[in-house]
């Protein structure tokens, strides 16, 4: 009898929990619909239409970035984000009539950052891989890049002219284009959080080499860095018979900001602004001028 009572109490408690949860759900949904009835009616197309309006409505374009010279970075003693991507992002926000806000993000969570509306776009020398294209609304490509191999200068003889990475432990950024390249060339990969951590693996001798973007390798290795003993060579895209990679800007899936950006990009390529900005940051050979 006493046990029955306890069982009933437990059931009641569970029922209460779920009904509370249910209440929460409904009321939240209601407020959402109230807020967004104007823009957010059902259907993919109309939902997409609201994204540009959403950004213009709140008046800021939040650009998700990581520190990546020469795309998004700060100069010594300055607190302003500059770089090829940052400068164009400022112009793009201006063309939308909104202010721009740069937000550093954790690269692994770029899709979640977009979907949760914590940021409005990812604009950070992002390689347009299959995964990226599948998870985001991506723009036309604006810059080219290839993956390169970074290794210790002492061991240069072992690595020069390699066409296969079999039998080597290669540090890569988890989820990056470099990881795909290393796997395709038969390496045992060591996925780490960031390209910078991949370099630390090489410097510490815990991995034989790392595969990262050539633009970043040029910036982060050699004299004046902690990685003065590291060198890079090999175009791993050529080694795989792959075309060079292309950088693009990522928006929420189905967002109409993609079209707005593509129009903006075509205009700025046509009037020479893109080439001018690219030349400022030494990217005149990498930038795409269709």
């Amino acid at each position, binding site marked *: 009898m006493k046990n029955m009572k306890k069982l009933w109490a437990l059931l009641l*408690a569970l029922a209460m929990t779920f009904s509370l949860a249910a209440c929460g759900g409904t009321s*939240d949904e209601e407020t959402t619909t109230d807020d967004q009835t104007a823009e957010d009616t059902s259907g993919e197309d109309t939902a997409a239409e609201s994204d540009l309006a959403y950004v213009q409505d709140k008046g800021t374009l939040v650009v998700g970035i990581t520190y990546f010279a020469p795309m998004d970075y700060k100069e010594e003693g300055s607190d302003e984000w500059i770089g090829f991507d940052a400068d164009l992002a400022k112009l793009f926000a201006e063309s939308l009539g909104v202010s721009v806000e740069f*937000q550093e993000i954790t690269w692994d969570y770029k899709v979640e950052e977009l979907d949760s509306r914590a940021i409005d776009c990812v604009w950070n020398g992002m390689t347009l891989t299959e995964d990226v294209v599948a998870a985001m609304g991506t723009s036309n490509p604006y810059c080219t890049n290839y993956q390169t191999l970074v290794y210790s200068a002492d061991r240069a003889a072992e690595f020069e002219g390699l066409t296969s990475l079999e039998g080597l432990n290669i540090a890569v950024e988890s989820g990056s284009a470099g990881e795909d390249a290393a796997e395709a060339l038969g390496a045992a990969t060591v996925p780490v959080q960031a390209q910078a951590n991949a370099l630390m693996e090489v410097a510490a001798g815990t991995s034989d080499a790392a595969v990262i973007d050539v633009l970043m390798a040029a910036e982060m290795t050699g004299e004046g860095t902690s990685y003065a003993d590291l060198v890079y060579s090999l175009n791993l895209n050529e080694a795989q018979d792959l075309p060079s990679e292309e950088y693009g800007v990522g928006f929420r899936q189905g967002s109409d900001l993609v079209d707005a950006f593509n129009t903006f990009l075509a205009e700025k390529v046509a009037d020479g602004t893109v080439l001018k900005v690219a030349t400022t940051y030494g990217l005149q050979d990498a930038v795409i001028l269709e």
Partner: protein
Amino acid sequence: MIEFFTSSTFQTVLSALNSGFLKTLQLFFITLIGALPLGLVISFGSMSRIPPLRWLTRLVVWVIRGTPLVLQIIALFYVPGMKEWFTWPSGENGRMLAVCVAFIINYACYFSEIYRGGIQGVPKGQQEAGQVLGMTKAQIFRHITLLQMIKRIVPPISNEIITLVKDTSLARVIALQEVIWMGESFMKGNSGISGLVWPLFFTAVYYLAFSGIVTVLLGKLEKKLDFFQ
């Protein structure tokens, strides 16, 4: 050696780490201010005479203590926006707010169990003595149980507080720029300096100094409460 400490690189790194550590401290104190009282409320819930309330509270405590804090932070920050319930304010402040909420809930659950142990550890005879003196329940709690409980819980709470100093580093998973984030930032580049590894390891100095101060303060508090025994 002295040249290194006066170099502009060291100064730049130091000021970046300082700004990061300010965020760490902010998170630490907000969590304590929120979680210490909330924990007491939760401990009352888990000792409640009403079984459904008691079980509900214990269910929550089980879920929060049984899942990693880092997962709670990620879920709390991203899920509301993805489900279109609400969006956290944009910018660094929104991230700080989300992280604070996650930390307060998590630490309150741990504190609640310490409180429960402290309250239930006070001998029953003490409460009975209060009843004999004609005190009300509230009076008994305030004047007899609470003070003896505080004395008992200081060592385990101190343990949690020291853990909290270091747990704040989990906040960087949603890109809150606390001290370890700032330390790591010089690896990929920050303020024109890139490829530096030592700032990351240098953050240990901040944690050690701060946990040292906290340890001394908590030790003093423990001494102050000695007169109970």
